[in-house]
């Protein structure tokens, strides 16, 4: 198996083929909006666009975004080789028109036409325990710490739908790709509680106030309807990473912690009652999902970090087992 070929195919799928959960959410939204509203017109165009991009293998959106590869690898893996394969795959995908020339040298202002540069694309590697524990998708990738014996079971969720082929787990390699566009990334933000102007204290009610405020501030700028990936706690940098990882979750799942699942549901419902609507032109579909994780924090800090993702939820995962067989994860 050639990793450059495999990752190029991962990019092609991610950039052109919206995952089924996101497409279904858009279709449901069309039915919710009144038929001759601007909101319905926009949502119908998004559904039509989704089918067209898939059929033609062309980008769903012209902003093909920051490419972030989340890897989970067994001990002893040559991660430098995988990273090089990712870079080769990005250059090839750009050449094929699956990715826009989307990389600017910040100092000279010139376009880096291959989309390959230092730290670009982004690769995050995590090593799986040698016995394969934690490989069944995927507490850590989803921003939840790995299980220790005797630990509260709530901290070790196993998400449904991720464990379709258990064979070869321990020795296999798993990779998820997220493509996140600039318009949506510009809408990501971080709050530090308490925040007096929002009336937000250091509790879940404070978190709710931050999230609703974030949705209001974002309006249509991030191509609503969008998804919120949220991390409560951690430090500033880890908060953004964990929040971003929440965006890999299926729109149909719920946080394993009942209090976070309840908050996810409530914020989704309340945000959609704000009337911002698709592209900020009014309507009842402002968010498609809210995905929240909690991390420990320092006594002095309480961050609420929001990674905003637009309707174009471009995320695809695959697993290559030790025998070289390939399995798509969504």
């Amino acid at each position, binding site marked *: 198996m050639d990793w450059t070929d495999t990752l190029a195919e991962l990019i092609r799928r991610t950039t052109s083929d919206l995952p089924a959960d996101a497409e279904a959410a858009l279709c449901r939204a069309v039915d919710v909006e009144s038929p001759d509203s601007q909101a319905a017109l926009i949502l119908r165009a998004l559904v039509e666009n989704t089918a067209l*991009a898939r059929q033609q293998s062309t980008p769903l*959106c012209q902003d093909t975004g920051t490419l972030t590869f989340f890897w989970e690898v067994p001990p002893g893996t040559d991660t430098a080789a995988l990273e090089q394969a990712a870079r080769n795959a990005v250059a090839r995908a750009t050449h094929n028109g699956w990715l*826009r020339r989307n990389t600017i040298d910040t100092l000279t202002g010139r376009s880096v036409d291959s989309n390959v540069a230092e730290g670009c694309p982004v690769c995050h590697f995590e090593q799986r325990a040698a016995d394969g524990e934690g490989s069944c998708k995927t507490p850590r990738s989803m921003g939840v710490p790995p299980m220790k014996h005797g630990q509260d079971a709530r901290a070790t969720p196993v998400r449904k739908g991720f464990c379709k082929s258990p064979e070869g787990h321990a020795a296999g390699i798993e990779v998820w790709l997220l493509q996140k*566009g600039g*318009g949506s990334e510009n809408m990501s933000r971080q709050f530090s509680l308490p925040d007096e102007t929002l009336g937000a204290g250091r509790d879940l009610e404070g978190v709710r106030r931050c999230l609703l405020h974030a949705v209001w501030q974002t309006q249509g700028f991030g*191509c609503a309807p969008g998804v919120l990936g949220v991390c409560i706690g951690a430090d500033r940098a880890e908060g953004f990473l964990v929040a971003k990882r929440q965006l890999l979750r299926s729109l149909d799942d719920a946080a394993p912690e009942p209090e976070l699942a309840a908050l996810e549901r409530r914020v989704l419902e309340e945000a959609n009652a704000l009337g911002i609507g698709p592209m900020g032109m009014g309507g009842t579909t402002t968010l498609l999902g809210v995905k929240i994780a909690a991390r420990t924090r320092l006594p002095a800090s309480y961050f609420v970090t929001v990674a905003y993702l637009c309707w174009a939820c471009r995320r695809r995962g695959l697993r290559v087992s030790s025998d070289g067989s390939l399995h798509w994860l969504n």
Partner: protein
Amino acid sequence: MITLHHPFTETAVRALCAGEAVRVSGRVCTGRDRLHKHLAEGGACPADLRDGALFHCGPVVVPLSPDPAQPSDGRGGWRVVAAGPTTSIREEPYMARVIERFGVRVVIGKGGMGEATRAACARFGCVYLQAVGGAAALIAQRIKRVAQVHFLEEFGATEALWELDIEGLEAVVGIDASGRSLYDEVRDASAMRLRRLLG
């Protein structure tokens, strides 16, 4: 649905109302951050924008020529595979000046714009259209031809000024020439609902 065709007349533009759905055809020029800064700071525009449309968009393009060393003849040696609107508010510092200097009648983008652009639309007879954000495959299908490209070397393919011939691009009037902005109305109404929710 109302149809608009290039060149766009002041009468046609002033007749549009916020919230109306339109289809745009004819010549449209793309421009993003680099172009707006260049134009607002007194730079020359190689394309004729008078009674024209400026589309906030950085397309995905591939050369038609199989020889990558000779990718373009500068006039249509390209195919657009994806082209949706980019966030317009980034051009807010420049937009009003560009509308005034070049006589732009139609701005196409996403997310809406601010007070200065709203005022310029009313004063000079211009309209802001919301294209469907992210619907890049669909919009690329409405692009029939790349007529010309400018600033390709200087700004790069994404930021370059692409002169495109389009047919039937769907959009919704976001800011009309009477000074009404749908975005302002949605923002104010949602602020009221937010206050109610947060008590």
